């Protein structure tokens, strides 16, 4: 596209920074009601963002309390009961309230329609409905916490969950409602991507973030109902004493594990796939290089989504499932590592001969590659049967999933948040502060979780309030790391919040990206675009030039360069 060819309102905003009140979704209308009843996907995304950050904060406080208690190995300030509740709530809040909805519901909601050059998602009312389901689910969780807590672990394993006196039913209702929220979001995104891609945006001209959201949505749609049904069965068992999972009543506790992991393993990919999508965008934009091997990255998202359904049994190698099952699941598990490895190699190849800028989002992307690689490689130890026997349910596993979920998903989420922040709120944050806290997060993270690999392999079981002295040194390093990490996270979010008051005004396209969301003003007008913007190769940066006066990138007229998209 060229400046001259699109005489739209957004172009004016793009060049002068002039914006009228109606041009800005944040100011388009005011009052609490205008937010609570909005059908605008951007406002819904922002409301999700607030909710998710509050959940993260809550889960983080629980984590720090856990880590502080673990400093000595004997009782410091929590009883065993309190500790058990604390790790359960930490895990449950982080998983169900924070990490599963984080990227799709908050960032995805905001970005997806704009990336498609559209005004909104396919079903705006359903979108608002999903948000309120999330709120209701969160309220159930809070009620469970306030009225008696929960001490089953976020996995709700039977028969313990049938017999404990804590608030299992309330929490399961919460999970059930959250599941619907997740299903509706997935459905909405699938329909939106299928039917609302603008003219010229073929499947293989679609930004990789959308591919990853699409793959995620498929999992959300197919796997979440299993979780819902499992939850209902457990509720029925507790309330009506039907013997499904409890051997006392003729049930089978291992059956519960099959049901649970049939959802929860794919759920891991609900968490990580969108993160990989973000990283693909960030690496390309900040290297100013066309993404390498576009088709391989796109296909690998779909491959991960499908293979992800076949590996749940690797959580159950020591449950007493048959040896044949163990062997089959081990084999399938290894097959998922290939598509993940492909992505890492492609990201590196994208950086080759690029022009790499270490803006904060890119720093998070690099941290992601580092941490996710550790998370992924340590998965190999868990996929191999003989070594998993030793490592299962130890801190090695705790470290592994934190490297993947926190080092992977959370870091990508924060990177994505920094990346789209100027678009979302129309302000620039302070780069140096952003980078500094990224570094603190990175160091704190490794100090927290690396020692856990060692103590886990040496035999420290997870979910322990007390432990034998041998493990103390590792726990102490880990606790120190956790507080450093806590400072880093508070700082990272603080830098963004501070920019809302003091930040410079953001240009339309501060990073020089070529996906469509950067072609409307920052923040976007209520309707995003008056006319659908022209679609090109999302990773072709040759027509973008940095403009001093604008403080961002503008499109320059030039010979329309023909680039292939794969």
């Amino acid at each position, binding site marked *: 596209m060229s400046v001259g060819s699109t005489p739209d309102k957004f172009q004016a905003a793009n060049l002068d920074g002039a914006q009228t009140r109606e041009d800005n979704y944040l100011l388009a209308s005011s009052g609490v009601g205008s937010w609570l009843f909005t059908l605008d996907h951007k406002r819904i995304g922002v409301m999700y963002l607030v909710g998710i950050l509050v959940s993260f904060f809550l889960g983080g406080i629980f984590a720090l309390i856990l880590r502080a208690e673990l400093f000595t190995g004997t009782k410091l300030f929590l009883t065993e009961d309190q500790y058990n509740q604390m790790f359960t709530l930490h895990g449950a809040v982080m998983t169900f309230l924070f990490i599963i909805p984080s990227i799709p519901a908050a960032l995805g909601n905001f970005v997806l329609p704009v990336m498609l050059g559209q005004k909104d998602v396919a079903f705006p009312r359903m979108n608002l409905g999903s948000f309120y389901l999330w709120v209701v689910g969160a309220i159930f969780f809070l009620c469970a916490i306030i009225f008696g807590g929960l001490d089953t672990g976020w996995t709700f394993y039977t028969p313990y969950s049938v017999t404990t006196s804590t608030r299992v039913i309330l929490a399961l209702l919460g999970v059930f409602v959250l599941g619907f929220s997740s299903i509706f979001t997935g459905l909405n995104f699938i329909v939106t991507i299928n039917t609302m891609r603008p003219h010229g945006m073929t499947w293989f001209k679609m930004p990789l973030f959308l591919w990853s959201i699409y793959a995620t949505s498929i999992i959300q749609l197919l796997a979440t109902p299993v979780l819902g049904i499992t939850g209902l069965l457990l509720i029925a068992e507790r309330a009506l004493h039907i013997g499904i999972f409890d051997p006392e009543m003729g049930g089978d506790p291992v059956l519960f594990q099959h049901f649970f992991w049939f959802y929860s393993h794919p759920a891991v990919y609900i968490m990580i796939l969108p993160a990989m999508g973000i990283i693909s965008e960030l690496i390309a934009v900040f290297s100013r290089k066309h993404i390498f091997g576009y088709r391989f990255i796109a296909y690998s998202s779909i491959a991960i989504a499908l293979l992800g359904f076949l590996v749940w049994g690797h959580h159950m190698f020591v449950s007493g499932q048959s040896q044949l099952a163990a062997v089959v699941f081990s084999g399938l598990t290894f097959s998922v590592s290939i598509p993940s490895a492909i992505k890492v190699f492609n990201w590196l190849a994208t*950086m080759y001969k690029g022009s790499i800028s270490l803006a904060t989002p890119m720093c998070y992307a690099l941290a992601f590659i580092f941490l996710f690689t550790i998370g992924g490689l340590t998965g190999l130890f868990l996929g191999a049967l003989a070594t998993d026997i030793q490592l299962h349910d130890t801190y090695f596993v705790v470290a592994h999933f934190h490297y993947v979920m926190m080092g992977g998903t959370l870091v990508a989420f924060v990177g994505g948040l920094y990346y789209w922040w100027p678009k979302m709120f129309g302000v620039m944050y302070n780069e140096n502060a952003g980078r500094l806290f990224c570094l603190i997060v990175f160091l704190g993270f490794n100090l927290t979780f690396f020692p856990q690999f060692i103590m886990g392999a040496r035999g420290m079981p997870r979910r322990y309030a007390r432990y034998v002295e041998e493990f103390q040194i590792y726990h102490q390093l880990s606790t120190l790391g956790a507080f450093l990490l806590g400072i880093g996270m508070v700082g990272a979010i603080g830098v963004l919040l501070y920019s809302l008051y003091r930040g410079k005004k953001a240009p339309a396209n501060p990073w020089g990206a070529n996906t469509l969301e950067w072609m409307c003003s920052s923040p976007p007008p209520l309707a995003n675009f008056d006319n659908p913007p022209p679609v090109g190769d999302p990773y072709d940066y040759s027509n973008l030039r940095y403009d001093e006066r604008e403080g961002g990138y503008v499109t320059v007229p030039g010979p329309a360069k023909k680039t292939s998209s794969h």
Partner: protein
Amino acid sequence: MNLLSNLPLLADADGGLFFGPANSTFAPMVDDLFDLIYWISAFFFVLIVGVMVYFVLKYYRRPGHGPQPSPTHNNTLEIAWSVLPSFLLVVFFVMGFTNYMSMRTPPDDAYEIHVQAKKWSWLFVYPNGAESSDLHIPVGRPVRFILESEDVLHNMFVPAFRTKMDCVPGRYNEIWVEAVNTTGSGINPDEHKPHDLFCAEYCGRDHSNMHAFVYVYETGDFDAWLEKAANLYEGRTMAEVGELLYKRKGCISCHSIDGTKKAGPSFKDSFGTAHKFTDGTEAVMDENYIRESIRDPRAKVVAGYQPVMPVFPSSRLSDKDITAIAEFIKSLK
């Protein structure tokens, strides 16, 4: 890693950084596979991060420098880096699987020990009827464990043996192990440095205290220990037997003898004193009350506690055993 292994704080002299000493026949196999995966992973990790850092330094955005043209895809390269690592994965899979099969297939002549897990203690039952709350096994002889649980899921985990298996209520699981070193000499526990045995499946309040020790003896010492363990009453006073039973039968997990409040009331200074119950009644703790509480724990529940104590039928505790326990509680005054 080598450098770190030399730090006494971080690693035993005889284990690696990641693993403690290997004390079963299959432990070295597990450690070797671990090391293989570890070094190959370390290689790829250094490669990936190395290339990443190199590219950042080399192609760092400097004034006047833009991206240089380079291909946006290359099928040969991409297929190569998808397929070649798969060979390594197949190697890991096959090694993990063959080692696992040998870990899961006990020899026919293995010595058998029943493991009963319950909240929050272990009971090991030997072929001659002897019972213990810590695990005692002979060195150099395959031992097969038959695992069961009385209540919720538990998991028997002995890091020194590299083995672990769930105890599932309503079904039997099995594992086996052959220890390669004794933990000390003689049958006196003080002469031993036992291995840890942990519960590795979350099982409620005292999950992290569900810890036992593993003693590995010379064959002769094991037989002597077994003999002694079977004849509980020989050469012991009733109160001493009571104390053993208190530990073995798991009373210890819920009743302290030093006054601390656990899931059940402490036994300290309790014999002969009055107890208040949830239904408002009251009774003095005497032999009959102790007997009733063991055979029918829900009949009288002390105020302030949950009715969580399991029933002990006479197959678990004989009348004589109960007398011994009562003597023990009496002795705590």
